[in-house]
């Protein structure tokens, strides 16, 4: 049977992707950002997950304003990197796992999560930057990916509670997949940042670290944080952190923290990263 063995949370700042692609990771500005991922790269090299359910948001790349799916799951065979205006990132195509993705999609719908199913789309920095941070620059990604795109751009995004519950449902879905697969769930985006208006540049390290704390252990308090608190405390784009709650929900009742990293800034953004494993009671 397939099983969820770990969760990863990470920011997906586009400038991080650009720093990797332009070979700037050794620069003083970038060193501390990437240093926090060294442990994780070595860890994932040993863990060798078969599939990552990668929760992210599209930033006006594959989706424009014509269609705004709240939760969309990529069931296609492969997903090419999006051209975000300056050519696609020079990274490998993302290879899907259609059997698992369709199994999750069907299970979620019967579990009353009305998913949008996507067979063809490109994937932007929201999805590819986390892969680069965790795997570096391989010729092919060493993992298959089930993209799970969440609307966090047009209000209202899904509530934190709904995201957590979706994670719980993904856990049930993965556990009922007959093939023996090592599956990780990643939540990406955040942490505090605001990219618009006179308040742009807002960073709230204290709140971000409270959020990281809340992902560890048995508490599910984070699922009840209302949107207005993310907006007030973490800037207009901090709302991306609801996507981390899908990852947390998928890990079950309790977690243990294996690694944690926090750095300000990358471009306009606070970089947060955490590696969690489920403490399974079931």
């Amino acid at each position: 049977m397939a099983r969820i063995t770990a969760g990863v949370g990470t920011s997906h700042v586009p400038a991080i992707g650009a720093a990797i692609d332009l070979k700037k990771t050794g620069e003083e500005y970038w060193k501390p950002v990437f240093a926090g991922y060294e442990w994780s790269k070595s860890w994932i090299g040993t863990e060798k997950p078969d599939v990552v359910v990668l929760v992210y948001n599209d930033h006006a790349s594959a989706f424009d304003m014509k269609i705004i799916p709240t939760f969309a799951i990529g069931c296609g065979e492969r997903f090419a990197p999006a051209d975000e205006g300056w050519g696609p990132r020079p990274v490998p195509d993302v290879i899907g796992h259609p059997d698992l993705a369709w199994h999750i999609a069907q299970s979620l719908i019967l579990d009353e999560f009305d998913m949008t199913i996507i067979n063809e789309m490109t994937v932007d920095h929201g999805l590819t930057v986390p892969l680069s941070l965790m795997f570096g620059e391989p010729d092919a990604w060493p993992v298959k990916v089930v993209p799970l795109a969440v609307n966090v751009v047009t209000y209202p995004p899904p509530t934190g509670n709904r995201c957590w519950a979706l994670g719980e449902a993904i856990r049930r879905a993965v556990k009922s997949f007959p093939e023996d697969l090592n599956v990780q769930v990643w939540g990406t985006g955040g942490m505090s940042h605001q990219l618009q208006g006179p308040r742009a540049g807002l960073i709230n390290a204290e709140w971000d670290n409270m959020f990281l704390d809340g992902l560890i252990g048995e508490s599910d308090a984070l699922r009840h944080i209302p949107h207005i608190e993310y907006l007030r405390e973490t800037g207009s784009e901090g709302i991306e952190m609801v996507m981390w709650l899908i990852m947390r929900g998928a890990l079950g009742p309790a977690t243990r923290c294996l690694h944690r990293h926090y750095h300000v800034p990358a471009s306009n953004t606070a970089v947060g990263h955490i590696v969690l494993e489920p403490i399974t009671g079931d």
Partner: protein
Amino acid sequence: MTTDIHQYLASFDDIPGTRVYTAARARQGYQLNQFAMSLMKPENRARWKADERAYLADWPMTDEQKQAVLDRDYNRLLDLGGNIYFLAKIFSTDGLSFVQAVSTMTGMSVEDYQAMMLAGGRSPEGLRSKKEKR
């Protein structure tokens, strides 16, 4: 657990210096954002760079929106329904980074803005709520 949509939306107006991208803004800015999205295609970028006014003439946007685009007045564009991820297509076409473009909305020079980010960013202190002054 039902949220009152009116209270939910009203609370956004209490955040200083922030325009939350609500359904109302998404409607108001639909053509503006779709115009910006069109700049994702190289052939459109070339046409846009050759003659911005002629390119805008093809889009059913308001005169105010068109003028704010020509002025690169990003705060005004947010007020007119623009969303930052769509507006990013305009400033990327201009060759500006997020830091450069975002700093223009803050009234700070790009150097001062970058220095603020390096020093840990803008503190939320006093910028959480207009009413509660916290």
